[in-house]
């Protein structure tokens, strides 16, 4: 199952995706860069940004990618990266995207993820592949 993800310069989500045995596509760091087009089903992994000035929870690059209908139509589910210390905001971006796109939040993990998190996500993605085959 293709994994599309955004990772900020902190690279936390990128490090997690490297532990997955599934193909992945990283969204550009810079919002002005062209967003990719995908032509197969995918799972999105997104961290949550803090609500600062001019900034919502969902990374702008994720919004830009999902604003392309052909991309959005292929989203199967969302995985959230976050930190429970942010209280109600824990994985907020994943929940917002899931609600907007009408797909489930498949999994959540914190920071780089525990080893078990990568195992669980690998298994979950395997099963999604089987289910959609």
């Amino acid at each position, binding site marked *: 199952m293709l994994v599309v993800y955004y990772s900020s310069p902190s690279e936390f989500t990128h490090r997690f995706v490297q532990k997955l045995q599934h193909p992945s596509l990283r969204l550009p760091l810079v919002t002005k860069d062209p967003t990719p087009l995908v032509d197969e089903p995918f799972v999105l992994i997104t961290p949550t940004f*803090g609500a600062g000035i001019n900034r919502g929870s969902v990374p702008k690059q994720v919004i830009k990618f999902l604003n392309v209908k052909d991309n959005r139509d292929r989203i199967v589910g969302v995985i959230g990266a976050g930190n429970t210390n942010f209280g109600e905001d824990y994985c907020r971006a994943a929940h917002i995207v899931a609600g907007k796109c009408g797909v489930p939040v498949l999994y959540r993990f914190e920071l780089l993820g525990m080893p078990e998190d990568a195992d669980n996500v690998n298994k979950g993605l395997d099963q999604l592949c089987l289910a959609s085959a």
Partner: protein
Amino acid sequence: MTETKQTVSPIDPINWNRIQDDVDAEVWDRLTANFWLPEKVPLSNDVQSWSSLTEPEKLLTMRVFTGLTLLDTIQGTVGAVSLIPDALTPHEEAVYTNIAFMESVHAKSYSSIFSTLASTKEIDEAFRWSAENQNLQKKAQVIVEHYEGDNPHKRKIASVILESFLFYSGFYLPMHWSSRARLTNTADLIRLIIRDESVHGYYIGYKYQRGLDGADQALKDELKDFTYSMLFDLYENEVQYTHDLYDEVGLAEDAKKFLHYNANKALMNMGYEPMFPKDVTDVNPAILAALSPNADENHDFFSGSGSSYVIGKAEATEDDDWDF
């Protein structure tokens, strides 16, 4: 120890229209958006709840908060300030000044809690206990030693360990009270502090990693070993401190799981893999729910299949750039 990074000249004016590292601006925005003062939290609503605690529970609570006051004082007046000369960008310096100020707000918040709930005599006794508790004093000394040392990387390591790990033996208690519907306004205030400390730990950990960009592997390896060993030393001390505090009310084992869980997060903030396995980081779900109200929802790929998540009032109005 070679230090090749160019630090900031103190005589150049800061230009926020020319940002070298976007993370500086993002974290500045986040921290300023999070700004709060203890006067905004209605602590006096906890007076009745406080009076329902037993004497050992009150004593424990006072001691926990004086310990947290000590850490915030160190971080505000020594720790965050000590990071400024090592900054790689002027905006990083500015973020540290914000962090230093908020730590002083946190330190003052505990005094607001004390003066609302306790008598002068109880307050003085709790401060005396903290001044005499060897484990609390040891953690303060270990951290300050590195803040005052000559290694900029170790200063950041010490700082992340403080921000993301050493506070949590204390933060456990207000989350515990909150899960029992006790001292809930105090818990609201502590959650604001936890949110701030989490941004601080993330940011300083990020800057630690940027500081090692381009460093040779030998230095990276040395610092990684140093980090794990410092964390482990402080962990052992923290376990004793946790027993000093919580044994009398029987919460030490529950609190220790919270320590393991947060020690892992401190490591991850520095880009390192967690050291405590899942079977000792299984934090009590009630504590986790007190920390993050939706943290105990089950999202394991197939449990909720078919039903998509419904967004409640929490949807941020800023997330409005959608075409659909």
